[in-house]
Every structure is written in C-alpha cells, then in structure tokens.
C-alpha cells in the first residue's frame, strides 16, 4: 500500500537578519547555498561566518537545485512524512523532506530536484525535494 506525502502544515522558519537573504530568494523560487570566498568551498546551512576560516568573507550563491538522497526515513505518524539528507550536486548535504511521491519508493541514491512548499502564517517557503 503506497504512502502518499501528506499535506501537513509546515511551521514557518524563524527569519533572522543573517538568514533573511536565503529566505527572500526561496520566496522567489531560488535555492542559495553558502560560499566561503577565502577557500572557494560551499557550505550548508547558510551563515554569516565561514565554517572553514571563521571570517565573514562569505556570500550566498545559486545552487543548481539537483542532488541525490544521502539518507532518509519516513516518520510513521498520523500524517506520514519523509525526512532526508539530500546531497546537492555542489556537494553539501541538506536536511529536508522528500515530497510529491509515494514515500515508500524513496531510496538512497535517488535523484531529486528542489521544490518549494508553502509554510504557515505566510512564512517563507520550505526547501524540499521531489524525485526527478
């Protein structure tokens, strides 16, 4: 029996002065990730200091929005949902949900692409992934 992704209400992320540009881009349907300009390496999650050098020489840059499932689990609650880490093609692993599919078909290594899903109280959308 398939387990369709539920339409559970998603709590809005807490926007703060540092993460606001990320969530503003998400409202426009664009996925950004952190870039350390000291080292040229991407990082996740977005932050105001490089986790490689601790300097503030960082910026948000567009990601392709495609990746593969690194690991996942389906929470067997009343409204089941699939939590996952998706490895973006840029290399970082993002905590997310897999949606728009039968959750019982999700597998490690599955190719996925970003989709944005509305959150409650007009919050910025959540960055989720669906099978390609």
């Amino acid at each position, binding site marked *: 029996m398939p387990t369709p992704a539920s339409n*559970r209400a*998603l*709590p*809005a*992320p*807490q*926007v*703060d002065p*540092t*993460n606001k540009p990320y*969530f503003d881009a998400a409202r426009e349907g664009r996925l950004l*990730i*952190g870039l350390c300009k000291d080292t040229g*390496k*991407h*990082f*996740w*999650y*977005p*932050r105001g200091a490089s*986790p*490689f050098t601790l300097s503030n020489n960082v910026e948000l840059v567009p990601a392709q929005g495609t990746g593969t499932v*690194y*690991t*996942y*689990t*389906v*929470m*067997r*609650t009343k409204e089941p*949902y699939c*939590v*996952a*880490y998706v490895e973006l093609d840029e*290399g*970082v*692993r*993002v*905590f*997310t*949900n897999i949606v728009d599919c039968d959750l019982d078909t999700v597998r*490690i290594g599955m190719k996925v692409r970003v989709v944005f899903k509305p*959150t409650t109280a007009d*919050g910025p959308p*959540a960055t*989720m992934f669906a099978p390609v």
Partner: protein
Amino acid sequence: MSLSGKAYIVGAFEHPTRKADNQSVAQLHAEVAYGALQDAGLTKDDVDGFFCTGAAPGLGPLNMADYLGLTKLRHMDSTDVGGSSYVLHVGHALEAVALGLCNVALVTLAGRPRAEAMATGTAPRTWGANVPDDPFEMPYGRTVANAYAMVAQRHMYEFGTTSEQLAWIKVAASQHAQWNEHAMLRKVVTVEDVVNSPMISDPLHRLDCCVISDGGGALVITRPEIAKSLKRPLVKIKGHGEATKNQNAGYTDLTFSAARWSGPRAFEEAGVKPADIQYASIYDSFTITVLVQLEDLGFCEKGQGGKFVADGNLISGVGKLPFNTDGGGLCNNHPANRGGMTKVIEAVRQIRGEAHPKVQVPNCTLALAHGTGGLLGTRHGSATVILERE
C-alpha cells in the same frame, strides 16, 4: 598530566521511580542527592562541588544549590551536552578533584517527562531561541527518532546492517531487565518481537527505541584519601575522554559518532584497550546508538557492529561484552530523557559487585561507561569513562 586514579566514585544512587506523579523535579534532585550521599557515607555539608545541567530547574546550578541547601560550594559546573552530560561530569569532577578545586563533588539528574506526557522522540523539538540551525530543520519535522533513524538507514546501506541485528541489542537489554524490579519493561523479547513491533521511523521500530521515564540519579566523587576513609568498595576513575561531533559545514557523515575521539582519549589515560573491558554501559537511546558507539569505541571494526551484537554477544553470561545489565534505557530507565547518569551508576554497581546476581560479571575489575547526547551523527556530545576496582 595524567589524572588517572586521582578521584573515586564513592556514592551512586538511582531513583526507584519510573513515574513521578507526586514529586516535583526539584524534589527528585533532593532525593537522588540524599541517596547518593547516604550511599557514600557523607552528608550534604561535605559537598563543595556541584554538577548539574540545563535539565535542572533554574539558572545553571544556582536554584538547585539553593533548594538543596548546598552552602559550601567552591566549584560548580553545569556543562550540558544532553544525555552524555553525566558521563562528562564524572570526567570534569575528576579534573576538579585532582586540581584541588573541590573535595567532594555531587552530580545530580532528575526529570519527569513521563508524568508530563512528553512525546520525547516523535514530536519536533526546537533547540531554543536564536539557534541558527533550527530555521533549516524545524519546517521539515526534525525529531529525535528520525535523526537517529537516518543514521540507521545509512549504516544499513553502507555496511549491510539488518533490522534483525539491531533487534539483538534490545533482546540483550530485555534479558537483563527481567531481573531488575524497577525496570519499566521486564518482559523478555525476541528478535521477531522487535522487528514486528510498529514502525516509528524507518528502519527503527517501537522496540528499537528507549523508554520514556521519570526519576533520576546522583553520583558522589571525591579524593583518594577521603574515598579510602569511607566504607564502600573503591571505584577508581581510571580514564575519561570527551568530544563533540557536528555537521561539518554540510559535509555531514552519519556513519560515525564522536566516540571515535572520546573513546581513545579515555583508553589512553587509563592505559587499557577495548579488549580489556569486562563490562560496558553504552548509551542506548535507540538500538542504532549502541551499534555505532560500539564500533567507534573500538569493540569491533567500523561496519561490523551488526555482526558483533548478534546472537547474544551483549548478554551477561552469554556473550563476550556484557552491556547495560540494568536493562539500560531500552528497558529499564531513561530519566529526564538523559541516560548518561544511569550508565555510570550500573558500571559502578558492576565494579562494586552489586549488580543483580543474575547479571553480575564475575570479578569485574574494569568497566566502561559511555554517553552520547544530542543528535547522533550531526550534533552531539560524547563522553567515555573507564572505572577500575581497587
């Protein structure tokens, strides 16, 4: 500078309750503190060092020190690394006692999540206000259970670990819990019982998860001279190590824990090897927690944990590495959602020869207690202590 053997655990007490309908958290702290001091043969006015965590009511150690009437404190430590805190506190107390910062350290833990009907593992929980990772996780329903489940899923993918192998960990815990009159789950279970129990978060079933229980525990740690003046068997703190693991800037590797770092530090200080350990208390929030830590502590090779735990290898009197002989968090007790305290307490019982006769390791002179607190794989504290009978 090695601190090996420069402090002893002289008092240990586990609260017998598993559902504290009639006691406040503060009262539970008082009851475990009194129990551990009675066990040691000391009084609260001997205490000049106090250790607790953010789970204690109030600001750091202040409100509990006030409630308990601790008036002689000259050293305090409220380091909070979740369930591993109380193992870490043993190490910090060793440091403090060895440096002369205090003579008698008291460590307390108490809580009542069961009486408060807390959905510990399955309800999304925030880290708190202004925590920068929360906006990138809370919309996605992060829970304790799904964080650990994703570790298990990846472990199965990389190493071929099976649900049946994980189930053996619960089976071993239940074999021990049947002898513990205070254990929440005393029924002996089989591998089939575990894998046929309802799925909580794939691949973890209900019986892969620990209990939610009230209660607490306390420890008393002191200088060698004082320990030798008391009447209890001598439990020497022979080594300790601590570490944390994080998300590595997004290059997250879920296959190992910080036990990979805290374990070798403890073994080096103690001057012993994993093969020398006769009894191990291993943090068991979930079955997968035990498996990953056993690998990282060096009891088996990385990826071989499934084979190591199978066929009763963790059962006292049956296998090579008796673990959690009180039934552990999986069957006995996980007070305040923090299992590090009871890990140390059962290791002390084993070293003293005071575990239940059915699970006591014969002539147990060297034991290990290990805790993981927070989210396995991504953000956790890790603490290892090695105890020796003198």
